[in-house]
């Protein structure tokens, strides 16, 4: 016998719960397509498993390519959730509440793919346990693993506890869903009642975790950057690389939230729950981030070019005018110029333009991650080691397929989640606040 559960009063409850009631044909089709893409990725990975990393376009000296780019990108994307819900929680920005879960879900679902990208990149995935048997803490890779695994773990908890009241709500309200689904809600709700101290304690726990999560966000992406920054390679070996990665991560993560929100709003008819004002708030944030990112870029490139150390300049020229010039200037266009124009002149009260800008930013940020990693490798300090055909990188179909399947996986987890759990926190957006 369940004790009677208290659920905060929310007028939009029906709207928010609407997508959870049923899995449509269209859903199944979408899931099948995404699974199909992942299947190609799995096949690609199997060829890599059985043949070796030789199936990739990686080479000497470009030892790291798409996979590591994906790793950095996905970890960066993951910063959206923590940023929106933890940092904004601490800042007391109450407008964030409707989009916290949508944002946190991005965190939760992109992190495994970030970690997966690392495993995919390993030459000997069968020896992954060596990291635990023989781990050396002098290696930044260990810092990375520590930080990312803690981050993943904490994100799950952070996400889960904020989901608890809504799971309980599903348990109590969704009586027409299949029995396995009901059972799932029942187990996952952990006997949530919403009575007594529960909501108060939940808020307290979330507040405290938010502090911790904020620290983790900073740590994680700085540590990710240190994988590069701790080497002596030109273009990487800079103290700025930590903040640089961090700002970039929050930037791309926040843009990702814009995209997700817009889609949810449209597909699940949540215009009321997710009002345009949300986009306007995000727009303001994004303007700040774009400018901050521009500042980072200028700080980085001005220092390098002004100092003009020849090793460093080789990398800079690779980006400005060399093999990566097209990518570099595309990145500049999609990360600064177009988004700023959109944000300043077109984006206000216009979800469509915001989405365009957000997509551009995410494409640009992926390219940016690529440009941080690969050009440096193409121009190592000992340039003579480059012979004909070397110092360039062309990803193979396996790398592209696996990258595609990582994105497909992220989307799949996301869309499946929205069909079983309310993507807008019902209790947090409730009209009546506290328990009676």
């Amino acid at each position, binding site marked *: 016998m369940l004790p009677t559960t208290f659920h905060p009063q929310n007028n939009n409850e029906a709207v928010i719960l609407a997508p959870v009631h049923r899995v449509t044909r269209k859903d199944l089709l979408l899931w099948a397509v995404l699974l199909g893409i992942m299947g190609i990725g799995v096949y690609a990975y199997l060829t890599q498993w059985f043949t070796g990393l030789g199936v990739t376009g990686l080479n000497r000296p470009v030892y790291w390519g798409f996979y590591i780019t994906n790793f950095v990108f996905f970890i960066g994307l993951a910063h959206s959730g923590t940023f929106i819900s933890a940092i904004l929680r601490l800042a007391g920005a109450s407008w964030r509440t409707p989009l916290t879960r949508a944002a946190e879900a991005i965190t939760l679902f992109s992190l495994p793919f970030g970690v997966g990208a690392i495993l995919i990149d390993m030459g000997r995935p069968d020896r992954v346990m060596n990291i635990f048997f023989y781990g050396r803490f*002098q290696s930044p890779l260990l810092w990375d693993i520590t930080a990312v695994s803690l981050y993943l773990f904490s994100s799950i908890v952070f996400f889960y506890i904020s989901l608890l009241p809504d799971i309980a709500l599903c348990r109590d309200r969704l009586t027409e869903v299949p029995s396995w689904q009901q059972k799932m809600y029942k187990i996952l709700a952990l006997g949530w009642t919403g009575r007594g101290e529960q909501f108060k304690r939940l808020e307290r726990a979330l507040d405290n975790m938010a502090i911790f999560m904020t620290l983790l966000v900073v740590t994680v992406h700085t540590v990710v950057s240190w994988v590069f920054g701790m080497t002596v390679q030109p273009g990487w070996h800079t103290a700025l690389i930590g903040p640089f990665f961090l700002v970039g991560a929050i930037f791309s993560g926040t843009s990702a939230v814009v995209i997700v929100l817009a889609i949810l709003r449209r597909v699940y008819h949540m215009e009321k729950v997710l009002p345009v004002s949300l986009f306007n708030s995000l727009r303001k944030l994004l303007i700040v981030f774009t400018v901050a990112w521009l500042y980072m870029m200028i700080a980085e490139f001005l220092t390098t070019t002004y100092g003009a150390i020849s090793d460093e300049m080789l990398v800079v020229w690779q980006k400005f005018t060399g093999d990566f010039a097209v990518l570099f200037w595309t990145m500049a266009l999609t990360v600064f110029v177009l988004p700023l124009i959109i944000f300043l002149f077109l984006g206000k009260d216009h979800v469509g333009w915001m989405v365009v800008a957000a997509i551009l930013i995410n494409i640009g940020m992926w390219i940016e991650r690529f440009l941080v990693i690969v050009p440096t490798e193409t121009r190592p300090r000992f340039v003579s080691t*480059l*012979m*004909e055909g*070397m110092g360039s990188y062309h990803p193979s179909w396996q790398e592209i397929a696996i990258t595609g399947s990582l994105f497909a996986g992220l989307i799949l987890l996301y869309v499946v989640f929205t069909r079983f759990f309310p993507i807008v926190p019902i209790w947090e957006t409730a009209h009546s606040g506290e328990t009676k």
Partner: protein
Amino acid sequence: MSKMITRRDFLKVSAVVAGSATALGALKNVVSVQAAAEIPTTLQTAADENIFASTCHLCSAGCGILVRVANGKVVKLEGNPMHPVNQGSLCPKGQAAPELLYNPDRLTGPQKRDRSTGHTSPITWDEAIQLVSQKLNDLRQAGHPEQAVLMHGDTRGQMRSFLVRFMQAVGSPNIISHESLNVAAAKLGVYLTQGIYAMPAYDFEKTNYILSFGANFLEAGSNPQRTISGYTYLRRGRATRGKVVVIDPRQGIHGAKADEWIPIKPGTDAALALGMANVIIRTGLVDADFIKNYSFGFDNIGKAKGFRDFVLDNYDPARVEQITGVPATTIARLAGEFASNKPSLALLPGKGGLLNGGFGGVYAAMAVHILNALVGSIEAPGGTMTQRNMPCVEWPRLSSDPTAKKGLATPRMDGAGSKFQLGRNAYQAVADQILDGIPVEALFLYDANPVFETPGGSRFAEAFKKVPFVVSFSSFLDESAELADLILPEPTFLERWGDDHIEGLGYPGISLYQPAVDPLYETMNTGDFLLKVAETMGGPVAKAFPWKSYQEVLQFRLENIGTDWKTFKELGVWFTPGYRFARRGSQKWVNEIVGVDRLNAPRDGYFDLYSRELYCFLGKMKKDELATLGITMTGDGTSLPHYEETNYAGDEATYPFTLNVITLMSLGPRSEAANMPTLQEISGMTVGETWSSWLEMNPESASKLGLRDMDPVWVESPFGKVNTKVRIVKGLRPDVVNMPFNQGHSAVGRFARGRGVNGLKLLNPASEPLSGLAAFTNTHVKVRKS
């Protein structure tokens, strides 16, 4: 109440401070690297191991090797430290030799090819012996033993004389060496001046100054390992560092290592050498004793013009600058340095030198060697030496029967000595001669792949069609073996007996090949095969070869080298160290150093500045007669070294570049090397290429043609065109382009086939009419983007 800091507190504080200090100290350790704790390990190795001393056969240097045989497999080669040529060193080719032995494309046994179908079928060695002896006996019975022809490559040691003896016993004078493709021009230059038909050995160790005329001595000279050791000793092995000047249109490795690189206009080396001679004579820096007492033709001889006046009249540095493109001041300076930093040395090109394609090349070699004479560096410490060979036991007298005598009296089929009056061998001309109707009934190819390695090699493919019986002894199915009727594979040098004379150091020495492993396949040492053929042929041929095996032949010949067979086998090499120079004008000088090989001119110990030998051939010729030989000079000038303008194939307007096919250290001179994957993978280090060929071009010329590095190009000469890619090389004359040799095989094996293109296909296939030399550097090409 004032609180006193007690001693206890003080200690506490100190401890904290000290603790932080050690922690900070630890920080330093954290960011530095510590030696790892040792995990006990053991070394596992082969159960049984042996080391065999032997000799490398992958180029003409003949380095001593120590072969490590583990569990019955050859796993590693090292240089033999006892061997004077390489003294423990070994170049990449030698190091890669296990890939020759264990090459997947080796021929595994004798085969017979059916001409009509082109199919090959395995036969037994007995059948092969029968077929060959039958053929030779048939030829002898028909009274035409001279119609058996043997073409061979870099074959030295006893095998060379063994082959000669075999062919002589059969009755054929036609043993044709490939030297007309490479060293013969230089050898002729030495012959026409010093009167000895051999490449000089150089005393690198004692010389102060080296002028290298395209000798390419650090990559692909005739004895690269010897010249490399000599060079490094000259530079850093002794107290004073010698100077090295390289004269070559291509900088290459030797130009890069030299103190000065003089990019000379191709084919004008003679003018430069004579321009320097002009300066040396004018400034009175000649070695007066040598010139006055031991040379011929410096001053005028009666009415005939001597070397001095000829050079002073014709080779003023200002004029030489016009011809060679080398500034007169540079010529004067280098000549001065050369003559005043004695002992100094002028190096003749060995392989891959850029001598002129016509007889001008021989004149150039003469002019270069005369520079050595002018500074007294002939047979002198720090100068040239005369290579001595180990005394071998004389072969038993060959009692030729009438058939053989008749055959031996016929002129050589390659035209050497007849058509090519001054030639000793005309390897590349064999095809033309056959196609011109000279009958050849049996053609043996030993260590020879003429279809690939001669300019216009496809003529050989045609010529082979007219020869009913072509036999190849190659270990690989190379381009020539593919067309042979009998393919009788010889084991690689790691599986057979053999020997080699040590060259390049002056003093005599002999180096042994011994089987490090049993032959992997049904192959047979060609020596053993010919012994069996001789036995089967019977009669005088059998009598000439009383030995049971080729190893016995070696033991017989090397009886008196000063050591017993056991010690020789153990050491792999035996030599008499220390070159003893002959005193100028002594009996030894006359008997061994100067004039020994002259056929017409007197063997009087005089070094010819005015070549009396050449006078015997050209002295009386008229202008038009000379013109047919491609010589524009008339009168005394024909016997004196002079500059002859190269008669290029392809007019300069259409074909603006001179093509130079360069030999690289990595791929070397032998076709098999192209099928060694390791060598392919390091082949084009200087330009960053592997497994392919390329065209080297000066950046200026490339930009004129609108070509960028790595652009695909057509290289076209009047004789053909090939498709390759252009590589920009700064160290190259704008009017010269280079292509690497030993790529573009259509056979040999999986690693060689279809890799790049063969630049020799573009070269003028003509032979030089006086000497029978292949014309390697007188072809012009054009280049266009493809």
